């Protein structure tokens, strides 16, 4: 079987959310000598990209998105040891620290952005909800992040996004990280007003913006 056939099968199994098939095709691909990074780039990620597009078109929803991420991680469990053996690395598109700002307990929108970013090849570190402004910076420093993504649903919690930017400025790190905003109460005017690098109205927009930051 040509390598391209393995990749097509893998992509289709991923789109069908068939975990057992994804794992077995991944194993088979390794057996026939395909490089792990090729399996990821040409089989798994194209499947995840299609799932992301289906999510945007409302053909799939959050549960399927979560399942796709779980399946991807299942395949990665097979691939990671081989990658380490070969001394190579999975090339991540970028590293993101994400969370819902202090005082805000809402998480679904943030979770969607996290999943879409992960399945688009970003390394995402999720700090959860009600996150202290300095915690974003500590984590970003720790993982050498490219950007910090801040979610806020409520008008009264928007100020938490400004706090993070202010804290970055206070530590002289504002230029080190791109700051991306999202959430129900956020508008472009607010993002401009507080000096964020970008604002996205939905998860897919957030991924596009994140990609543009590292292009």
């Amino acid at each position, binding site marked *: 079987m040509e390598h391209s056939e393995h990749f097509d099968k893998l992509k289709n199994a991923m789109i069908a959310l068939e975990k057992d098939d994804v794992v077995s095709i991944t194993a088979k691909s390794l057996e026939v000598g395909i490089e792990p990074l090729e399996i990821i780039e040409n089989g798994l990620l194209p499947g995840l990209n299609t799932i992301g597009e289906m999510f945007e078109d409302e053909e799939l*929803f*959050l549960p399927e998105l979560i399942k796709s991420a779980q399946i991807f991680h299942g395949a990665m469990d097979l691939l990671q040891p081989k990658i380490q053996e070969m001394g190579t690395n999975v090339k991540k598109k970028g590293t993101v620290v994400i969370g819902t700002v202090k005082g805000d*307990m809402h998480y*679904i929108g943030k979770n*969607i952005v996290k999943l879409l970013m992960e399945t688009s090849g970003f390394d995402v570190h999720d700090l959860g909800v009600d996150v202290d402004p300095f915690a974003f910076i500590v984590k970003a420093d720790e993982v050498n992040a490219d950007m910090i993504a801040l979610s806020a649903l409520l*008008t009264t919690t*928007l100020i*938490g996004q400004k706090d993070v930017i202010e804290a970055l400025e206070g530590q002289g790190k504002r230029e080190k990280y791109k700051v991306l905003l999202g959430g129900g109460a956020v508008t472009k005017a607010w993002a401009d007003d507080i000096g964020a690098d970008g604002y996205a109205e939905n998860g897919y927009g957030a991924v596009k913006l994140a990609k543009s930051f590292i292009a």
Partner: protein
Amino acid sequence: MLDLIEVFERADNGILILDTDYYMNRFVPKLAEIIDRYKIKWDRQTIVNSDDDLADRVFQAAVDLIAEAGAYCPDTNRVMEFTRDEILRAAEQAPQSTRFGEGREAKTMYGRDVDEDSVPWIHVGGGIYTTDEQIFLDTVEGLASINIVDSLSVPSILHLRGKDARVRSPQELLSAIKTVILAREGIRRSGRAGLPIINGISAASNSVSMIAAASPQFGLRPSDGFLIDFLSEMMVNYEALQKVAYFNSISANIGSTSTPLFGGYAGGAEGVAVLATSYFIMGNLIYRGSYHYNAPLHQNLRLSSTKPLLWAIGMSNQANARNMRYPVVNLPYLGGGAGTRMYHHEMAAYMLSVVPAGGNIFSGHPAKSVEPNSLLPRDHQFHAELGLASAKFSRKDANPLAQKFFEKYEKLIKDPTPGFRYEQVYDLKTKKIVNEEYLKIQDEVRVEFKEMGIEVLTS
């Protein structure tokens, strides 16, 4: 029905699990299984369902979802579990009417039946942010002056001395008190002092602010309505239970409130219909609600006027109307800005979806509820009149008309038309409308609606 202390103890004694496990191992698979079990399917075309058997299956599915998934308390990381018998008893014992207001304005909101041509409860306004105390007062006075209105949602005013209050701050608590005082004053100026406010309390995001601002010396009464929300999805936190404890202790009207998210853990139209119905039952079971705020929302678009959502919202109303008849108002998040044709078209599709389905009237929230000063009383009068006109339609007759309205704004959903702000339409001294363009649009829309088959009479 379970006593309240027993309900609270369920949050302390249920199974201990991670929230992600609750969703991925309980809620999501159970909901999918239950939707299959009851063969609940949206045909991707219908906006207003008229299949009674399907509505009843949605209700049964909602009961099963609570019984099999339970709710989740993030403060204790425990699943609040209920037996099928406890759930059914809560549904049976749910109030079918609730008394609001004082004196001459006192009135009863009823849970309506499907295809019922009675006059629905008319609720207008919204908790939208205002930037200025004068605009806040004038908006409330204008809304309360609409003579057919039965209750108000008042906007929120979150700034003190020119600064916005932070969540959980003392300024937020003071803003919540200020909101209540100004709202009551705005209503008094309309000459209808007893008119109920049923979105208590728009500016209070936490239980301390809400309970503080509910103190009677600021003007709210048990005959107003106090909103207690479920966090999306199926989350019941201690803050909500604190409010339940307090507002039940003063025997106030509680508005159980839910915002099931289309595209979130519930998935698409079918999941949202079932979940929204579950929240009605949980509103009685857990919150001892007197009425419900039903506010399903599109996760990405942040509005409720898409075709699958209109179907799901109407379906949840039908499931309730045929099996429980809990008084419900439906909160329309619309994309079009205040005063625009798009806004009115969305509102027409929404009213036709929910009023013949057994829901009560709630005027529209323009511009996804994020544009400040966008509650224009004249819009809300028109939408109340539109709701009354919608009540004359059966579900079967409402569907083709709702489709026509949907077609008018379908292409604009992803990029809605921006609208007007209060200060662009009203003279701030005389409080009269001075924007001719605004008036022209509404006049033309009224004519257009009549030509399309729904005559909206001026009240």
